[in-house]
Every structure is written in structure tokens, then in C-alpha cells.
């Protein structure tokens, strides 16, 4: 089985409304595509030193796919775009 794709949503802890929305949209998109077994969406704390040393300075909400930042400081609100992002990784 192929390695799972990890999509990280970077946000402050406690989460801000924009980051929550981004996370929800991504989770919904994964469900709609039916790829729960291949893609994992996780929310990570953008304030932890580990995340900062991994990604450097970020504007939240940010979305990183497999350790690469795809969205920086923008709320992801359309499911269509979320699906595009996920499809791109899976191909």
C-alpha cells in the first residue's frame, strides 16, 4: 500500500475561525472523493517550535501537503479548490 498523503493545516492553538473552516473544507473534500484511506488531514499548532523549525515563518491559516506549503495565509473556503489540491497530490 502506498504511503499516506498528509495534509497539514497550520493554525494557532486555540484555532482561529479561518483555520477551522479550512480544516473542515479539506476533510469534507477528502470524504467526497472517498480517499480517506489515502489522505489524512491533520490540524497542527503553528505556534509550536517544531512546526516553526519545519516551515519557518508562516501566516495562518496555511496548508502544507507532504511538507510543502501550498496555501499561505488564506482561508480555503471552496470545496472545489480543496478537491483540486487533493487530486493533484494523488496523481
Amino acid at each position, binding site marked *: 500500500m502506498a504511503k499516506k498523503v498528509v495534509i497539514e493545516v497550520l493554525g494557532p492553538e486555540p484555532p482561529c475561525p479561518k483555520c477551522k473552516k479550512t480544516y473542515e473544507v479539506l476533510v469534507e473534500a477528502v470524504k467526497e472523493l472517498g480517499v480517506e484511506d489515502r489522505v489524512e488531514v491533520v490540524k497542527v499548532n503553528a505556534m509550536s517550535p517544531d512546526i516553526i523549525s519545519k516551515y519557518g515563518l508562516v501566516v495562518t491559516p496555511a496548508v502544507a501537503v507532504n511538507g510543502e506549503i501550498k*496555501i499561505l*495565509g488564506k482561508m480555503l473556503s471552496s470545496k472545489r479548490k480543496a478537491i483540486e489540491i487533493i487530486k493533484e497530490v494523488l496523481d
Partner: protein
Amino acid sequence: MPNTNNIVRVIKGLTPIVLFILGLTYFAYCRITSYTPIKLPSLEEMKSYGPILLPFIYAFSYLVRAGAALLFAFVLAGFISELMPKHVLLNHLSSRRKSSYFLAALFSPLLTVCSCVMIPIFAGLVYGGAGLGPALAFLLTAPAANIMAIIFTADIISWKIAIARLFFSIIIAVTVGFIISKMPWGKAVEEKSRARIRKGYGVAEQKEPLLDKLWQSFQTTCFLARTILPYLLLGIAIVSYVQAYLPPKIVATYLSGFIGIMLGAVIGVPMYTPTLVEVVLVDGLRHLGMSPSAALAFLIGGPMTSIPSMFGVSRVVGWKVILSYAVLAVVGAVIAGLCYYIVLGDVW
């Protein structure tokens, strides 16, 4: 039907631009001709409405009066949050040169349209970027000099106060950041985090057509409006009671002159006002006799020392740093008020 799709896209993309131009034109027109679509009710009128009707009438007249400025400010904030090349700004911020203080203070209003964005950037600056001093400069400028707040201040109160607020916020933020990074506990934080510096990171942002970006910026605008307006309306309703029932004598005695400046800077600390509400409150109080210099001290000191952001930051740098920056920010706000009084006197 690709053709209709394209038309829809163009219309969607142009919506924020049209609203922006409308808002800006109307806002500028009102400023230049000093035309006001509706007058705020006078004190006697306010009392005659009675306690039930009062907040509604007050809020309504506020929205009519400040509608253009609010529209303009919200659309602009949407543009900034969507169209700003953020990774470019962030790369500049990651340096350890002296100029990073000013860059942090100047970029701060451009990066933080929503206050929840602030603390992660702050943490990032402390751990991995420019260090504690610029991080503090960034943190302190953001709420007091945010673009929406400045536009709203200019519209509701006056240009002089708005410009003074922006100017002094940046100066105070940079100074406080610099002083604290030289203090023993500030140095301790810097030592602890210096090991984590990391330069350059992969950003593979997706390229998108401008029209789509514009539509997204409009969605951000709506999101901001939905988040901020309820608090603003509630704030306006509360201020209507303050203005109608707080005896002017108290305000005129305690919120003017030197005591006024001191009190103005200090009362902002425990009082947490959501963004933009502080402006409404000041406007209410000035009709009761608050002096401009006291108002300026309040508008700078209050947002800089907001308790929620202090809690958020405490996890990153500890309470000693926070208490010292709060004290210094209040002192700075007092000095700003004094400077305003010396230079301009009691002019709004």
C-alpha cells in the same frame, strides 16, 4: 457552457473592485465636502428615545454614517489578505538586521487583517526569524495600526488622530521591542530560541487567475464582515447607553488634561474592546468632553495591551516579557498623548 461560465467569473471578479471604488468615492466625497448623510442624535434626543429604542436608532445612524468607510475598509482588507505576496514579506522579515524592526512594524498592518494571525507570526519571529525585538514590534503594531481600524478612526473621529495613532503605534512598538530585547529576561528568551533558526522554506503556492483571486478576496471580505460586524453592533449599542447616561461632568473631569491622558492609557489595559469598537467608544466619550490627547492615549494603549493576545503570547515568551511590554506600552501611550497635546493642543 464555457461562455456563461466566463461571464460569471468576470462578474464575480469585478464585484470587489466595483464595491471598492464605490466605497472609496463616497468616503472621499464625504470627507472633502464634509457632507454627512445623517447626523448622530444629540444628547437630549438620545435621552428622549428611551432605553429600548436608543441602541437601535444609534446603531442605525452609525451604520449610515460610517457605511462607506466600513465598506471601503472591509474590501481593502480582503484585497490585502488575498493579493499580498506574503512569502516575499516573510522572507524579508526573517533577517536579523536592525532594519527588521521597522520592517516588522511596517509589514504588520499588511499581514494581519485578522488578529488571530498575529500570534503564530509572533512565535515564528521569536523562534525562527528575526528575534524577540522585531517580534514584539510586530505584535504591538498590529492591533493599534491595523488598516481597518485606521480608516475607521479617520472617518469617525478625525484624520489627525488616525495619523497620530498610526505614527505613534509604530514608533512605540519599535522602541518597546528594542528595549525589551536588551533586558535580561528578553535576552534569555533570545538565547533559548536562537538555535532554531531556519532559512528559506519551500512555498509552492498555486498560481491562480486574477479574477478568481479577486472573488476570493471578496469572500474574505464577507468573512471579516460576518466576524467583526456583530461585535461592532453590540459595541455601538453599549456605547449608546454610555453616551446617553454617563454624566458629562465625570468624563470632562477625568478624561481631559494630564489625568485624562494617564487614565486613557491605563483604562485600555483591563478593558478589552473588539476591533473598531474602541473607535466608537472614543467617539461617544468625546461628545461628553474627552480630550483628543486622552483619546489618542486610549486608542494606542488599549489595543496594544489587549488581554487575549497577552494570554496567547504568554505561552511563547513568558509573563516577565509580557508585563514589561505592557508597562512600556502604557508609558508610550502616555507620551504619545502628551506629544499630541504639545503639538496640536485640544484639536481633534
